């Protein structure tokens, strides 16, 4: 140990690569805990992971396939299940562009400009995180429901929001709107405004600066926000459950799972749930890839 430390301290040029890795190993050894502590810590982490993640995950798929592949296929291709999947995709397809637009605009304003009430805006953006989704759903029922503020006005025109698709979209959009904005604010603040200013003095219009400089600079952060937003939009239960009147005819996938489970159709419930689980796993994989890219982009941007 002593010998190798001395060799590390005075590396010969030929060996620099080798001794550098030795050096790293030596540092790692120096900061390490005793082996016993390591084993206990790792075992604890694994036990937690197993109990709260792996076992439930396994149960979902085991239950889904309990009655065989045919029942599984029938469960996820039943008209109700397909309708639920379609509705979930539709809600996501409307919510994502809306929240992306809002997120980019809000993050742009917050990160690139000085104005009064900025901290109020930042706090407001976080509101959906602080409010229970059930309350969020109730807010829309109180606004657009039969007895709601706009209830009569809507009734007179025969426009349905609550217990219908618009209500689901509204509730989902509310619950998911901080994701893109939050992600981008941090990202844009880390990058500062110098590149946009550079584009402006070089003769670019605000629009040109946005598309040619800002968007390429934030694309990975933006994608990261959209992925998180999508995962939440597809999985949201509480707020949607309230605006649809607790499991009615219009069901998203999470509501459909709840409905089937409530009717003791366990295999079918878990089969539909397995779709959401898969979406979750794919999201995690994409998120990981995007995270790495986003991180390297922030680093490159600061150069």
């Amino acid at each position, binding site marked *: 140990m002593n010998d190798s430390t001395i060799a590390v301290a005075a590396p010969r040029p030929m060996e620099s690569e080798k001794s550098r890795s030795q050096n790293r190993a030596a540092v790692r050894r120096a900061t390490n805990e005793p082996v016993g502590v390591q084993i206990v810590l790792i075992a604890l982490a694994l036990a937690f992971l197993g109990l709260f993640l792996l076992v439930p995950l396994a149960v979902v798929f085991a239950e889904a396939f309990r009655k065989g592949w045919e029942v599984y296929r029938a469960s996820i291709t039943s008209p109700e299940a397909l309708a639920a999947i379609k509705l979930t995709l539709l809600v996501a397809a409307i919510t994502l562009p809306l929240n992306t637009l809002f997120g980019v605009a809000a993050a742009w304003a917050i990160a690139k400009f000085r104005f009064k009430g900025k901290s109020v805006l930042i706090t407001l953006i976080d509101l959906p995180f602080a409010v229970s989704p059930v309350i969020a759903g109730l807010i829309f029922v109180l606004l657009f429901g039969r007895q709601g503020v706009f209830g009569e006005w809507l009734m007179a025109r025969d426009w349905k929001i609550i217990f219908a698709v618009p209500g689901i979209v509204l509730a989902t959009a509310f619950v998911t709107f901080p994701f893109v904005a939050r992600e981008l604010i941090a990202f844009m603040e880390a990058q500062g405004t*110098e*590149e946009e200013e*550079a584009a*402006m*003095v*070089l*003769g*670019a*219009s605000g629009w040109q600066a946005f598309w040619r400089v800002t968007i*390429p600079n934030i694309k990975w952060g933006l994608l990261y926000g959209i992925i998180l937003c999508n995962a939440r939009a597809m999985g949201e239960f509480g707020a949607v459950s309230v605006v649809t009147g607790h499991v009615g005819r219009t069901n998203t996938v999470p509501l459909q799972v709840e409905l089937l489970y409530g009717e003791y159709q366990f295999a079918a419930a878990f089969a539909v749930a397995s779709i959401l689980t898969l979406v979750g796993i794919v999201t995690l994989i994409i998120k990981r890839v995007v995270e790495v890219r986003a991180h390297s982009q922030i680093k490159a941007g600061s150069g």
Partner: protein
Amino acid sequence: MKITVRDITKRYGAFTALQNVSLEVPQGKLVALLGPSGSGKTTLLRVIAGLEAPDSGSVLYEQDDVTQRAAKERNVGFVFQHYALFGHMTIFENIAFGLRVRKWKNEAVRERVMELLRLIQLEGLEKRLPSQLSGGQRQRVALARALAASPQMLLLDEPFGALDAKVRADLRRWIRQLHDEIHMTSVFVTHDQEEAFEVADHVVVMNKGRIEQEGAPDAVFASPANAFVTDFLGHVNVFHGRIQNGRAHIGTEEMPMSFDVPAPQNGADEGAEVTAYIRPHEVDIDRVSHGSDSMFAIVTRVNRSGSTVKIALVAQEGQLPLDVELPHERDAELGLVVNDRVWVYPRQVRVFRREEAAQSGDAKIAA
């Protein structure tokens, strides 16, 4: 292109960044805005570029009032302190950016970018990304990008600030040469007086949002207009005293020392408190007294490793530390060693009234 700045004031909340600043940058000159951080020099540069809108006052390019004009319409080359290169674009596309937004044809863009790459001596690196270049190379790319669309003037914000000493010296010389070749009206911001004096034709010293003094580098260095400028332009010994019989007296009753008050400052009243500034290289040391304009001191340290010999002394029974720089020849004649008892006599003393000096003291704290 001549730049005229008239009565510019710029505030950020309670902080006044620029206060009634007026300045003229003659056609084809290279001008340095010199000052401590917070002096308003960068704000002034950004106002000239149109990146910052002044609260009052106006900016003129020749006779043309551009105060209300957006940065993108001013055709100005601007080099940012941290380069602000577009991280996702190649070096080629970075330099081409200003030409692309002006809708140049591909052919012409290529020709112009290659010409600039030759100018900044980075041919062959056009396919690299900014993150693959060194600091000095990035700075040159930023310069080429600023020059691409043939701007009417070049504005540089701390262009050498983020570089190490060797690269900085090279780049400084290169910018000066470049300016001598293309004669573009240029303004650069710096907090380094050596840099300003070495590169610029004209130096503007700023403090607390005001211009303290401007002029040719030699003239500013030879006769600083006030206490702040004297203090800011490099290392200087500071003494406090008062005016008696038209002379500035410093030191204690037992060991008095007095100077003639130089012409521009001799309006000081009898008894007024003054501060005297003595530059280390404007002092001589001798082993005998020269009367009341010399001062007794003890040598505490001698450093012969530089182009001059740096001698640290204490005067007034250890109360007043004092630095002196002597030529090696003079040092050889004296043969000084630590603890030698000597007489110090300044060849030139700059005396300013105390309140003015106190003001500059504040500025240093604020910086």
